[in-house]
């Protein structure tokens, strides 16, 4: 689909048109950080945000979701709960778009996950391209997710006095036609985009001193690395690397029964492979009791196993894991050390 142009001053009218007809979630200021939240006006949107604390995965795969309602007692019964509502997610950055794309593949795999897919299908993603990395923690260039090639309905790039709009889907195009004063992109606009892209290539730097396509190979040879033991000594196992990761999808399941001892709900709640209980099974056996084994597991999932299984990297380099690590365990450093090299 052909790219379009929205004049800078017309973005407000476009978002207001979206707001008039839809539930819109967008990056907003939350204290000294940012969080995706439902907005009622364009002024609430933090267009210049760097990164949100959680990615928008929470809209497709909520932190705590009821998946079953049941009744105990003389006539036990159970009914699956699949809830979804249409939503526009405005302002998603390319790394989060890439992460969503991975989750789409994971949750569509047989057996498909109706709770995720029903929410995802009703969501429209309007992305916002980044001109510069969020901060010193970003390694999206290393993970090749700093440019969004697919997985969005619309992707906006700020060219100064206008937005260059890549159209990914018909749903995105329809919103544009209905709500925006958009014009066809001209040859000059394409040239301006190319120049912008050249600037972007310079402002994003690689931090891992090798091509990350070698990560599966490097991780595959690192089972006995001393790196795991070294980072385990300082790891708090707080799980924040997982809970803030846009591609983590492991959950635990809990049944909650009301005080009448009849009505109950089954919840699925985000889990973390860094927690002591994560790999504990019936009988009390824990097959990843050691902190070092848990860490090795996480890095292998992010850098090796998901790529091998789904053809997409389990890490998008958004840096949330490193940014939220209180004891400064750095993915970039781990990958660098595993390859036997010093960080640049």
């Amino acid at each position, binding site marked *: 689909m052909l790219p379009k142009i929205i004049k800078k001053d017309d973005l407000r009218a476009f978002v207001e048109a979206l707001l008039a007809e839809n539930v819109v979630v967008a990056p907003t200021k939350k204290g000294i950080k940012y969080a995706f939240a439902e907005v009622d006006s364009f002024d609430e949107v933090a267009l210049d945000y760097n990164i949100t*604390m959680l990615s928008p995965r929470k809209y497709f795969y909520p932190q705590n979701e009821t998946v079953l309602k049941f009744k105990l007692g003389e006539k036990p019964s159970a009914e699956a709960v699949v809830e979804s509502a249409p939503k526009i997610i405005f302002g998603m950055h390319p790394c989060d778009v890439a992460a969503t794309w991975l989750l789409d593949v994971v949750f569509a795999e047989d057996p498909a996950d109706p709770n995720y897919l029903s929410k995802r299908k009703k969501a429209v993603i309007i992305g916002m391209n980044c001109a510069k990395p969020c901060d010193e923690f970003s390694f999206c260039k290393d993970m090749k997710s700093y440019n969004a090639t697919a997985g969005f309905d619309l992707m906006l790039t700020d060219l100064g006095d206008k937005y260059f709009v890549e159209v990914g889907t018909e749903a995105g195009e329809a919103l544009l036609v209905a709500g925006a004063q958009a014009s066809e992109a001209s040859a000059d606009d394409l040239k301006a985009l190319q120049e912008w892209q050249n600037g972007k290539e310079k402002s994003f730097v690689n931090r891992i001193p090798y091509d990350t396509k070698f990560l599966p190979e490097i991780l595959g040879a690192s089972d006995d690395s001393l790196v795991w033991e070294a980072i385990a000594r300082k790891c708090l196992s707080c799980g924040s690397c997982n809970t803030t990761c846009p591609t983590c999808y492991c959950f635990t399941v809990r049944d909650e029964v009301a005080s009448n*001892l009849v009505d109950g709900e089954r919840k699925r709640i*985000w889990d973390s492979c860094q927690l002591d209980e994560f790999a504990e099974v019936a009988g009390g056996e824990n097959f990843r009791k050691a902190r070092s084994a848990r860490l090795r597991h996480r890095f292998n999932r992010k850098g090796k196993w998901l790529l091998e299984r789904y053809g997409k990297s389990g890490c998008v380099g958004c840096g949330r894991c490193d940014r939220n690590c209180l004891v400064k365990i750095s993915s970039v450093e781990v990958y660098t050390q595993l390859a036997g090299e010093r960080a640049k």
Partner: protein
Amino acid sequence: MKPKVAFFSFTSCEGCQLMFLNLEDELLNLLGAVEIVKFREAMKEVTSDEYDVAFIEGSITTHSDIERIKSIREKTKILVAFGACATIGGINAIKNFQPLEDVRKYVYGERWDFYDTVPTMQVDQVVKVDAAIHGCPVSKKEMLEVITSLLLGKTPNIPDYPVCVECKLAENVCVFDKGMMCLGPVTRAGCGALCPSYGNKCIGCRGLITDPNTNAQKDLLEEKGLSVAEVLKEFRMFDGLSEVSK
């Protein structure tokens, strides 16, 4: 026959029993499922000296406490430690770091020798505990989880992971990012990260998780500017009986 339930107060503020009474919408259902025979905060009379489940609020801090908790243990089928004072000693354990004679003089003045005291103990240091409900005070949700689980004969879901998990799920700005200290990384969750969600730090009232990396936590607090003494003070507020406070 409905199981008989009794509530007992040891050294505590009895606030956790108040939390039980605050389960207003659930009380009628619960009273349909159990018979409460002794509960001094809620009823005048003791309707039976027999009970199946004993809820113990408070720490063990006197010789007579030790005898009383032992006799309750002998009579009850299930004993539930109820609230931080009972499960981890809580703030009552602060006195353990001072000479007990000084403590008695400070509290009771001239007639201090009239009042007996022993170093604070959590309930399971004296008798076997079958279930624990953590927190200062306990959370209503977890209290219900334990009570309904006991009635259904299943193991209650009590988190054994740190407060950070629930704090991140709530998408709170990290307490450390605000320039404050926090015990969230080593403290048992289950509160829904209540204190950080309202702008405070976690003070550790639910006790430590089973396998905390307390050395890393101490290093972290020191790196953020606390002295060793201050780090210990943070831990000793609620976790005085744990290894980390020694």
